């Protein structure tokens, strides 16, 4: 007993030593702060976006939304048990997909526009073909042992899911089987985002860590710490070299993948609500973060300042998304409305 304890202590010490060494290596390359570098950049000024459309149709809290690659269609999921596919230009609902389980937490649009995936407390990721005459279930991906928090399509034949069982998984849609399981997190995985080159993806979890994974080898390449609470939202900077995370500790952070550390944090003492979702404008300059205080705040990603707010929702903003062409931003909320702003 005593010998084992001694060994554990020795190992713990070694672990701490290694951790300190990694920190030191990171500090060594940290030779410039974002605020210093961005000092010369012109300020964005006050960003005032107007509400352009208010999409009504859901009957209960909206939990997730995702833009289609054509920047016109969008799918939203609500706990009234329906997925709605909207043509955001006209405001029309194109398709309604009834769900087997109403407790949906995530939704994704395939880049081709043919498929839509959803999942939630049923632990199953269901993929629907929406181009058929009436939406048909293509596959039910059932192997997670925890709720499905997020999913993203790589193509019409592969999808990556993040689950409350602390793993992320790559599925083959033709066979419906798991191809790679990404295990390393020690808390529920809450969200994931694909890199622009689709060779890797990032995931944020309740263990307050963000991890970068290599899709091909199935391994965790980098881990980023710094948050003090669950990470709810995660997104890539458009260049693919940095990631933005939003957490329950009321702050967002930007981590650089090449410098392997946090470069800037976005927090404000007046903001006491957790961040639920995060999206970036096309140039990466603006960060739209949805908060529990019913607003979506806009941050200048380079200067770290709050430059605007989108208010109008009557309940928590649960999801945010910017379409591929960057025309504006869509916010979805627990008040059952989706609002488009620009």
């Amino acid at each position, binding site marked *: 007993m005593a010998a*084992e304890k001694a*060994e554990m202590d*020795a*190992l713990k010490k*070694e672990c701490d030593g*290694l951790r300190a*060494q*990694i920190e030191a*290596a990171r500090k060594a*390359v*940290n*030779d*410039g*702060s974002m605020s210093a*570098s961005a000092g010369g*950049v012109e300020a964005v000024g006050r960003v005032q*976006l*107007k*509400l*352009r*459309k*208010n999409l009504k149709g859901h009957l209960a809290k909206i939990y997730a939304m995702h833009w289609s690659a054509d*920047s016109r269609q969008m799918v939203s999921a609500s706990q009234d048990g329906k997925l709605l596919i909207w043509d955001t*230009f*006209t*405001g*029309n609902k194109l398709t309604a997909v009834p769900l087997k389980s109403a407790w949906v937490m995530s939704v994704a649009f395939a880049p081709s526009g043919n498929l839509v995936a959803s999942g939630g407390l049923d632990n199953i990721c269901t993929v629907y073909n929406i181009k058929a005459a009436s939406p048909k279930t293509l596959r039910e991906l059932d192997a997670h042992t925890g709720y499905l928090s997020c999913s993203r399509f790589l*193509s*019409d*034949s592969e999808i990556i899911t993040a689950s409350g069982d602390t793993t992320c998984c790559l599925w*083959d849609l*033709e066979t419906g089987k798991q191809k790679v399981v990404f295990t390393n997190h020690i808390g529920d995985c809450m969200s994931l985002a694909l890199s*622009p080159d*689709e060779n890797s993806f990032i995931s944020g979890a309740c263990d307050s860590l963000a991890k970068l994974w290599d899709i*091909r080898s199935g391994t965790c390449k*980098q881990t980023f710490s710094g948050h003090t609470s669950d990470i709810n939202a995660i997104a890539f900077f*458009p*260049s693919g*070299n*940095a990631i933005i995370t939003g957490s329950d500790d009321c702050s967002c952070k930007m981590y*650089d993948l*090449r*410098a*392997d*550390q946090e*470069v800037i944090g976005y927090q404000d003492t007046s903001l006491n609500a957790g961040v639920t979702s995060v999206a970036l*404008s*096309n*140039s*990466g300059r*603006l960060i739209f973060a949805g908060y529990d205080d019913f607003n979506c705040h806009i941050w200048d*990603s*380079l200067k770290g300042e709050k430059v605007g707010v989108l208010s109008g929702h009557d309940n928590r903003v649960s999801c945010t998304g910017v379409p591929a*062409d*960057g*025309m*504006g*931003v869509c916010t979805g909320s627990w008040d059952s409305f989706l609002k*488009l702003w*620009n």
Partner: protein
Amino acid sequence: MTINTLLVKEGCPQEQMACFRKMEKVIVAMQDPDMGMKMRNQRLLITVIPHAMTGHDIITWLIQKYCISEEEALHLGNLLVKYGYIYPLKEPRSLVLRRDESPYRFQTPYFWTSTQWPATELDYAIYLAKKNIRKQGELMEYEKERYSLLHKRINHTWDFVVMQAREQLRASKQRRKADRIVLECQEQAYWLINRPAVTCQRALGRNRVKSSNCLEGFLKHSEQYQNHDPIMQGCLPSNPWISDDAAHWTMNADVVPVPTRLRVERWSFSFMELLSDTMGRKEFMTYLEKEFSAENLCFWQACEEIRHGENSRISEKVNEIYKNFLAPGAARWVNIDSKTMYKTLEGIKRPHRFVMDDAQMHIYFLMKKDSYPRYLKSDLYKNMLAKAIVPQETKKSVFPFMRRQRHSSPSPAQAATQATEEDGRVKEAGQIAEIVSAQQRIRAVRKTL
């Protein structure tokens, strides 16, 4: 069977020992003179090593003996190698079981992890010292670090360490060369298992870029894309969400007769931007055809289709690519370096989604470094840029007396009635004009009466 490994110090925990015993049973069975593996003398460079076997043989034996699938046998074999019961003779650092003719040997029971031969710092120091003395600079990076660390820690016995190392080297010189190599391999394999280059080393040894460079990268990116960000700069002819005019989308559709200027500018930002735009790719293909290097882009596209396409069609697509691009004398042979070509051809024997990755990367970088910069300087691109449209900003309201609601767009039903209203008004105006002229005519006629 989960084994938490690495950093096994004095005493293995109970669960590990149970697993090791199971592995040892397998190993003993493998070495059985009748039912065990057929071993032979393997040639390693110019020396002949006795009692070695090939990776292929190991897997076949495992499949036969335990009636398992090849995948499982490979997995099991890999575990045996990782825990040091079998070690490779070629590439000793790569503790992987290869399914081919690579030679492997059984580790002597003296060095089995379960024997719990104390892998103390002293022994490790002696081993590293021997390596260092034998051939200067043979130590790997992590070994050098550890060597200097040990030198600091057990400095008081350093003389003993060096003396022991020298003694052991002298003794080994007395042995036959084959024996010496075998013992060296055994020892090296043992220490690779017990003092591995831990994953943390990877985190420490990672190439990190200076913050200042990274931050500049972000600034540049934001600046470059500022004009292309509709939220920041607005967009021409108008933002469809605001003006309800889909002109912007029609102008920027996938395939248009003439692309917009912003779009063509984006092609010069990065090679990936050019390739991800359908029209950009088409233009680049035309350019490459002029330069007689179009097969590169065709090859790249075919590889992309494999990476993102259906699983069931992978073998078929890989064969196509081989026939068209890689086979000697192929119609559109691509120029890849021999090492990558060899690796790819080997990989094609067992096609999978990423089998073409290395070759694809090679061709991608070839195009990026060579053809892409020349394309940007070419007349083809410059003409495209000159021809490209800069859309006119559409005026916000065409009918001044028509007040558009500012905060939400009219619903389709409303839009329809508005349209009819407009038509109505025009018709009305026309009708009024007609009536007026008719009245004038009537007055004129009355006058004449």
